[in-house]
């Protein structure tokens, strides 16, 4: 009962501190709000997140190739193309790309470059005269030029990505043709055309553009298809976890603070055991993080419309995170001699650990994402981030069990070491 009284007193003090409230609730919400605004705006069903439409000029100088001259290529999906250049034109002008780019055709490479230099457009695609010819030559290498405004990054980057995927698809088709020619010994254009068509229609959708470009949306969570939520949900999850650990550390600092203020020694003069006093302090740390995480998860849902996952897995991960954040705070403070050291430790160590834990979110989609995810598991909040990402991806209860067990294991180790150090100090 006395432990509970101590916990209530500590929590009352914490929640009366404007500084603590700002760090517990204000900063995570504010930062999430800023990310939300950066990427389009708040709203639970936000479709407002749209990438800027990039103006693109295409200078199609392609004269066609032997194969295209012999057989007017008919590509699946209804696209009619007399040359590879025509094909690229058609693909880029497809209505499904209308949200991403606005394509204009020009007659010369100079005109295209001039449009970029004068910042009328963000990028220019220059298709050389021998593009189809080189593509048709089984030993040749076809290339085109992407001329872009160096001051712009997102729009031209998207165009570059689209073109790379297009070229990859066509290269794959060409390899298929090459293998066929090598195996049959025939260079009959009709055969080649058939192979190309068979290759290009082999995609399950049968959609020309989808087959050629295979534009995939990489999703890390199930956020009702909203691109904005896909970005901000993991960020807010990360912020909640980071600030839960910060709160754990600053709440546990009340032990040192009370020692310095003289109230802890005074508590030791009352008929209350040291175990009860420390238990009360630890309980306060845990309960404070419970309140903080619960409120932030609910506000994340209400304000930003974030779906954290189904109740049981989210609860399990949240409990694991609370335990780890609270015990991490106890452990961290047990290493400190005074609150003066706290500023350096909290500012430095917690930031580094928080950044390590957030690497999987920052490095999403990068080739080294798996490596970064593994690195993040070397720090306790890394497991918490992993758990929340799992629940946001609709993980079931059994899917998050390992994460929960890892968090629990961290908690036990941190708690035992922290308690032993504090008991030794106040023995």
């Amino acid at each position, binding site marked *: 009962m006395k432990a509970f009284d101590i916990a209530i007193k500590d929590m*009352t003090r914490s929640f009366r*501190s404007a500084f603590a409230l700002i760090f517990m609730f204000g900063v995570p919400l504010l930062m999430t709000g800023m990310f939300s605004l950066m990427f389009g705006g708040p709203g639970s069903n936000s479709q407002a997140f749209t990438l800027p439409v990039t103006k693109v000029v295409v200078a199609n100088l392609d004269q066609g190739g032997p194969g295209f001259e012999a057989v007017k290529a008919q590509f699946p999906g209804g696209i009619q193309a007399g040359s590879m250049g025509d094909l690229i034109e058609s693909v880029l002008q497809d209505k499904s790309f209308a949200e991403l780019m606005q394509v204009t055709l020009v007659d010369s490479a100079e005109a295209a470059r001039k449009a970029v230099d004068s910042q009328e457009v963000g990028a220019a695609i220059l298709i050389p005269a021998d593009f189809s010819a080189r593509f048709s030559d089984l030993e040749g290498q076809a290339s085109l030029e992407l001329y872009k405004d160096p001051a712009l990054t997102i729009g031209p980057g998207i165009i570059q990505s689209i073109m790379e995927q297009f070229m990859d698809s066509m290269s794959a088709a060409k390899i298929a043709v090459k293998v066929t020619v090598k195996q049959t010994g025939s260079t009959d254009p009709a055969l080649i055309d058939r192979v190309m068509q068979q290759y290009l229609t082999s995609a399950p959708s049968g959609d020309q553009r989808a087959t050629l470009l295979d534009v995939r949306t990489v999703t890390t969570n199930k956020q009702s298809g909203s691109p904005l939520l896909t970005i901000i949900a993991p960020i807010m999850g990360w912020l909640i976890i980071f600030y839960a650990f910060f709160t754990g550390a600053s709440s546990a600092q009340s032990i040192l603070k009370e020692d310095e*203020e003289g*109230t802890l020694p*005074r508590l*030791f003069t*009352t*008929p209350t055991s040291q175990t009860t006093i420390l238990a009360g302090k630890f309980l306060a740390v845990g309960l404070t993080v419970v309140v903080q995480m619960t409120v932030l998860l609910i506000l994340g849902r209400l304000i930003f419309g974030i779906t954290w996952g189904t109740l049981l897995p989210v609860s399990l991960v949240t409990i694991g995170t609370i335990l780890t954040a609270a015990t991490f705070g106890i452990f961290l403070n047990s290493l400190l001699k005074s609150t003066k050291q706290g500023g350096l430790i909290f500012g430095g160590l917690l930031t580094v650990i928080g950044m390590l834990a957030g690497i999987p979110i920052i490095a999403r989609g990068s080739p080294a994402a798996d490596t970064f995810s593994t690195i993040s598991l070397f720090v306790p909040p890394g497991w918490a981030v992993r758990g929340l990402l799992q629940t946001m991806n609709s993980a079931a209860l059994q899917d998050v069990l390992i994460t929960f067990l890892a968090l629990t294991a961290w908690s036990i180790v941190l708690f035992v070491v922290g308690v032993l150090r504090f008991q030794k100090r106040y023995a």
Partner: protein
Amino acid sequence: MNQPIAIEVKNLYKAFGETKAVQGVNFTVEKGEIFSLLGPNGAGKTTTISMLSCLLHPDEGDAIILGHSIRKDAMGVKSVLGVVPQEIALYEDLSARENLAFWGKMYGLRGAVLKARVAEVLAIIGLTDRAKDRVGKYSGGMKRRVNIGVALLHKPKVIYMDDPTVGIDPQSRRSILDSVVALKNQGMTVLYTTHYMEEAQELSDHIAIMDHGKIIATGTNEDLIRIVGEMHRITLTINTESSRVMEAWKATQGVKQVTAEDGTLTLLADDSNRVLPHLFETAAANKVRISSVAVQEPNLEAVFLHLTGRALRD
């Protein structure tokens, strides 16, 4: 058992590394009396109180508080004690009422009993009207009063007060000294530490003078003054090196002791009226100008000076 002894301290020792803070302290405090530990800062008073509060384990020795040993029954000791620490130990972001309620719970009070006792203590310390204000907004004297109030919540039989008047205004000091006497009148035993001679002299039934971790004298105020006899304390300020007159003054008939510090000389003499003219004559002969003179009747300050060769506030 109805023993007359409330506190029995037996040969307590405590060292912090090489520093011997308390060296074989012995004393007894009778029930219902005010017992003062008097000594300068660093004398070992707070370390002694800390051991008697079970905050520190003694290296050697023991103390029995109303039948409870500080070594064997710390919880028993704590349950009969109220402790007023030297520094204010309160939660500044809680109100006086919230502070008292919390500390009351720590002493095991609950429900209606707690509520009633908090109201009583607020009345005793005269802060009923300000009970809802946060302690952080209080003046130093008001905080001191709450600091004392906390120790009274569970109606302890023994109360320790460790230099409770440090750094407060005269009005608040007067209020605290009156409250100490009031506690005694209610039957409480008070162990009071101070470095203010006047407080010990005014309040105490018995006094122990501490210096360098040891008790150098114990007794009533009168007993202790008898150590220095009926000697007067004469403090003189001179305008030059003390060495020019010090030896001559030491040789003056009726002067028992001379100490010098920063241009101020302190003398113990049988009769100040008889000695002072000789002191002025000697000063004039040595071309020393006396700029001030103060004469004090025998008191604890003189006792401390007599026993240690230093002033109490050194």
